[in-house]
């Protein structure tokens, strides 16, 4: 673990020993700043029952700079675009070194429970969400089944 800051070692240990419910984060065996993450779709959301894969990287400047995160599983969500990028303030200008990998993953899980179509990244999804929420939720559920359940990518 030469060169890995103590803070990252600590955070990793805690993530593994006290995992957050519905979230797993495993460091890559060749790169301890790189995590393979899964987030279970929260209960009572259109993502329920899905297991979403993400990747997370702690840049050299971490914790002064935010972790980099993206979804690898396709998801129909107004704040997540077609290539998996996430629109979340704490990953951008609201990042603070007081936050951790754990808080970031919890915030992403919360974003799945509470999509925010007024601060969109995937514009057409946000438009649909605002115009016809029921239909958008139905599509989100279909995508969850298609891409985030066993056999999906």
């Amino acid at each position, binding site marked *: 673990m030469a060169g*890995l800051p103590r803070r990252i070692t600590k955070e990793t240990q805690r993530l593994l020993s006290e995992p957050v419910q519905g979230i797993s984060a495993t460091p890559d065996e060749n*790169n301890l*700043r790189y995590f393979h993450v899964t987030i279970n779709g929260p209960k009572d959301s259109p993502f329920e029952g899905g297991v979403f894969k993400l990747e997370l990287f702690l840049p050299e400047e971490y914790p002064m700079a935010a972790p980099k995160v993206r979804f690898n599983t396709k998801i129909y969500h107004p704040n997540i675009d077609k*290539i998996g990028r996430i629109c979340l303030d704490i990953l951008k200008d609201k990042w603070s070194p007081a936050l951790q990998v754990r808080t970031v993953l919890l915030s992403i899980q919360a974003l799945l429970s509470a999509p925010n179509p007024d601060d969109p990244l995937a514009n057409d999804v946000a438009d649909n969400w605002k115009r016809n929420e029921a239909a958008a939720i139905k599509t989100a559920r279909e995508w969850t089944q298609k891409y985030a359940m066993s056999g999906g990518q």
Partner: protein
Amino acid sequence: MSTCEKPRTFVLLEELDEGIKGEGDGTISWGLCDDEDSSLTKWIGTIIGPPKTVFEGRIYQLVLHCGEKYPKVAPEVKFNTKVNLPFVSATGHIDSRRFHYLLNWTKSCTMKSLLKEIRRLMTERSYQKLKQPPENMEY
């Protein structure tokens, strides 16, 4: 096995961001071929031929293929727009053995610097004698 190495996805997402911001003077640009391609594999680049050269004002389109091992392994690069350059094959592929930038590719190289280097080479004096195909022809 450096623990600080940036994974492929995040290297490419940064290149995508930078491509969207643009290079300022607009003489080169790059972006994903398909904005839904979450594998971030197939890219399109453009180069505007530099002034006072045989390439002047022409728009050259290239396809860059960033494989699984990018950026450790250089992208495969192919011109879509016909051009006569010694390091470009008859099918438009750039021959990495004849193009030093690809030959000496390292993981800190980027598509931006690659496109810039091609454009710089277009100003080489010895290339100004090369007869160019008619404009807007494709491979």
